[in-house]
């Protein structure tokens, strides 16, 4: 079975370490905040200018001056700091954020990522994604492995305009957890019940399959 969005978030959350400053993108990455393991403390960075994003506000706490990068109303946790967008991107570009998680349309075996533009179709803009991928050493990309029509999104070379070049080193899809190294995807884990064959079939880029590919496990909820 392919991973659900919640399971993808759970799997990414296992990469969090105590004391990490983490930037979570919109969509599945945002859900990671719900699965921060017990006993570790992380600070969530929101690139509009908030370090230490808290949970959503109660009705009483709701404040139009308190939003996250997805423009949702949020709160600040104890120990949070608020600053300008220039300061926010100084910490991103300066490599001070320990882990960045973001979605993508395509990634390729060279670590290129396309996540912001489908020519002639959908125009949203890159927001902070180009700064985040250029500034971070430690990025996990979350995405579906293939399109609804079965076309692979893990490619030899991205077809869409890039968000960043050579910057992605880890990918979590609904089927697998992979690393990107030396011009190839390396299959590290597979979703429960998903065969190596299916992953091979749905990966268009160069894929290295180790002898043993462990299956992810999830606690029953």
């Amino acid at each position, binding site marked *: 079975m392919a991973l659900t969005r919640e399971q993808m978030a759970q799997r990414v959350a296992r990469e969090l370490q105590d004391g990490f400053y983490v930037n979570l993108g919109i969509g599945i990455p945002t859900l990671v905040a719900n699965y921060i393991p017990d006993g570790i403390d992380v600070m969530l960075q929101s690139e*509009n200018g908030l370090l230490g994003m808290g949970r959503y506000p109660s009705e009483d706490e709701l404040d139009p001056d308190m939003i996250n990068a997805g423009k949702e109303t949020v709160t600040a946790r104890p120990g949070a700091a*608020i600053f300008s*967008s220039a300061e926010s*991107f100084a910490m991103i570009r300066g490599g001070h954020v320990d882990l960045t998680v973001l979605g993508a349309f395509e990634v390729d075996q060279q670590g290129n990522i396309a996540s912001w533009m489908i020519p002639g179709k959908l*125009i949203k803009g890159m927001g902070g994604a*180009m700064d985040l991928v*250029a500034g971070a050493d430690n990025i996990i990309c979350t995405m579906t492995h293939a399109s609804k029509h079965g076309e692979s999104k893990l490619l030899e070379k991205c077809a869409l305009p890039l968000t960043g070049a050579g910057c992605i080193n880890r990918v979590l899809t609904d089927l697998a957890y992979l690393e990107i190294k030396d011009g190839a995807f390396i299959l590290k884990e597979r979703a429960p019940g998903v065969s190596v064959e299916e992953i091979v079939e749905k990966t268009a880029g160069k894929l290295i399959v180790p002898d043993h590919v462990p299956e992810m496990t999830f606690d029953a909820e």
Partner: protein
Amino acid sequence: MAGFDKRVASYEEAMEGIESGMTVIAGGFGLCGIPENLIAEIKRRGVNDLTVVSNNCGVDGFGLGILLEDRQISKILASYVGENALFEKQMLNDEIEVVLTPQGTLAEKMRAGGAGIPAFYTATGYGTPIGEGKEVREFNGRHCILEEAIVGDFAIVKGWKADRYGNVIYRHTAQNFNPMAATAGKITVVEVEEIVEPGELEPSQIHTPGIYVDRIIQGTFEKRIEKRTVRS
């Protein structure tokens, strides 16, 4: 206007001198911390052919989005236009020139503009369409592109509190692009929720020192929420 007293009495006075064809830098992120009354005054004046520099372009019917209705904007530099149908339509129809700019690069372009730095190198955008045609240099093994600073004829800014000297503080994440925008205008206009007496603001807590600010006005604000998320 005597000495350092930057206060003006009306929004008309606040935007005095704005003309068609000018570049306007606006603070705000989404609908948070936007100079909503100064934008409304630009609409009222009917100036057009504006170049607008802002992270977003409001939404349909609010914020900078209202300047799209009468085609007052001919060019915009922004990082994200996802929530604005009219913007997307004008962009796809080539009715508005859009220079999509990475968010951090946009913030830094304003900061550099205000700080007298004409251009800077950054790794952001290298290898992407944003880097095409830009000078590339390698620093410490990383490819970087040259990005130029921005200075506006006007900067329009939303603050929380200010004194008459133009010292400004911002509230929560309504700070966002406002401090950089404030530095980068030939004429910087700040609208705030409250003008306080000099000395009431703690000097070390000032976000925007008054030297950057030309005009201050106190207004009332709708502060529309773009995505209302609450926990149950």
